[in-house]
């Protein structure tokens, strides 16, 4: 596996500052990192960078089935974008669903995950191992299976939730939870938080265990309550951890697809629950309007890039 580097001269560490060396050696040590990087960069270039450029190119074309089969291009400028921005669907349904959902889901996941981490940190070692293993179970459940379990739980005729509500007399007739935009997304939030909080909990827990206990003890002696201890000591120390979990969750929740597409009505017949990802997919693969679908995808990417810039800035600030 390390084939390319082995036939080169033994490496010299370059991190400790540039020591005088011969020209030949310099060439080799400049070549080695590139050799090591080459396979990864090649994969990234062919499968991420070029497609990223291409999605932008597609978004400027009237790209249909004919074009995709023949490979011809058909540029129409920014018409696709104009169409999207003029579509009330974007402003009334898709964007609020995407952004609103992401905010609620990220908030829910991070707050709940942190609370769980705090709880875990307060447990004895044995219990902590047991409980965190159980939490892993929720994380490990694939999105597709998890979604079907939630669908079943909330199924109008055969679901447990309706069964309980009917049985206790809270509702008189079965309720279809998937037709209403709010209850539909409430189920999606439940699904996402359930699947996403273990990552937050485990990451924050690992960070918590690293927080200096002297500081906390000192604060306790000073009479600081639990809330003050959390916000004055733990949170600032763990800021980078929180930056990571918040931003990763944001990215995951913005582009959620399967959890919506697979729900009853989620693949297009219930217009009020579309989000950017599903809308792009439906326009592309059901309507053969790959150009329009690409434009929606570009919009989604740009939204996320804003978040990414924040992420990168936070991380680099921490490093300095």
């Amino acid at each position, binding site marked *: 596996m390390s084939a390319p580097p082995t036939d080169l001269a033994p490496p010299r560490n370059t991190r400790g500052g540039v020591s005088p060396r011969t020209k030949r050696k310099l060439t080799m040590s400049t070549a080695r990192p590139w050799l090591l990087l080459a396979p990864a960069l090649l994969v990234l270039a062919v499968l991420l960078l070029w*497609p990223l450029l291409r999605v932008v190119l597609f978004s400027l074309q009237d790209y249909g089935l004919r074009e995709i089969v023949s490979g011809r291009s058909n540029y129409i400028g920014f018409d696709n974008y104009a169409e999207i921005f003029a579509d009330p669907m974007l402003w009334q349904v898709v964007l609020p669903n995407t952004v609103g959902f992401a905010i609620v889901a990220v908030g829910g996941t991070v707050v709940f995950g942190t609370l769980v981490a705090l709880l875990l940190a307060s447990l004895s070692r044995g219990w902590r191992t047991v409980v965190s293993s159980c939490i892993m179970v929720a994380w490990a459940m694939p999105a597709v299976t998890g979604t079907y*379990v939630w669908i079943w739980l909330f199924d109008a005729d055969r679901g447990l939730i309706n069964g309980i509500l009917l049985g206790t007399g809270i509702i008189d007739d079965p309720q279809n939870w998937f037709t209403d935009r709010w209850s539909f997304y409430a189920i999606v939030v439940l699904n996402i938080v359930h699947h996403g909080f273990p990552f937050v909990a485990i990451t924050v827990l690992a960070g918590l265990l690293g927080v200096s206990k002297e500081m906390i003890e000192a604060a306790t002696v000073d009479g600081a309550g639990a809330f003050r201890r959390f916000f004055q000591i733990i949170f600032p120390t763990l800021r980078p951890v929180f930056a990571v979990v918040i931003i990763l969750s944001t990215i995951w929740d913005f582009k959620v697809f399967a959890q919506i597409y697979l729900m009853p009505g989620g693949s297009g017949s219930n217009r009020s629950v579309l989000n950017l990802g599903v809308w792009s997919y439906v326009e592309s693969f059901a309507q053969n309007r790959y150009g329009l679908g690409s434009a929606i995808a570009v919009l989604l990417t740009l939204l996320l890039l804003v978040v990414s810039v924040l992420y990168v800035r936070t991380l680099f600030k921490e490093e300095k």
Partner: protein
Amino acid sequence: MSAPAPTRSRASTPEVIPQRRPRSPRARWILAAKALAVAALLVFTLFPTYWMVSGAFDARASSGAQSLLPSEPTWENFRYVLDEGGFGTFLKNSVIVALLTVLASGILALLASVAVARFKFKFRTAILMMILIIQMVPLEALVIPLFVQVRDLQLLNSLLGLVIVYVAFSLPFGIWMLRGFVAAVPEELEEAAYIDGASWGRMFWSVLLPLVAPGLVATSVFSFITAWNEFIFALTFMDNADNYTVAVGLQQFFGENSNQWGYVMAGSTLITLPVMIFFILVQRRLSSGLVAGAVKG
């Protein structure tokens, strides 16, 4: 969730054996609240999984008459999904795809992370930035161009086509995470190996690799999950039931048996179990890996 504070010092020093000193009423109250919180957490976390597994074993799940405990335990649901549902094929495909993805992305990410962590070269920061930004790109946005790309590579409808896409997806995260681990390996150890006359390759195998193993575990988990759970690309790339991975296989199966919840849950259980076992096995290494990689980054 109650305030965990009073036991904080104990929790932070897990080596200390919990003292059995008499508790004040307040401490006891807190303990009870905590027990309640743990119980509630476990119910919330485990219930969907429990419901899935119990449905899978319940002969009456399909008729909507399932109770909290399977009333008529049976293996029939599993027999059906394996014999008629084709889940054996789906599982096999997913195992192949996941293992190849883990292997290939692990190797590529390790090599690349050594480059960015151990060497100083032109454009190093630029490459790091690029990797970070790429990690933010929503893969769902790339379905169309990647579909065309994989078609041009003649890899549609083949497991390999999915593998290369998944490798690309898991690389940025893998590189970013492993970078932290490689940087944490003391250079003295490497130098000691050279003094013993080891070549770079030998040093890599016997010094670097064992030390970054926890990081590799964490990245492997991520690429494994990516490959095992991924849905939208598998849905678009595959149009032959022989090549379905578990996620698409289950979706297709659901389309045919949407009201046979016993079957659907048996299929779900089959494809969830391998991931769960894998997760619980690597759990401990995973959490240290996550923090080291994501935070020290």
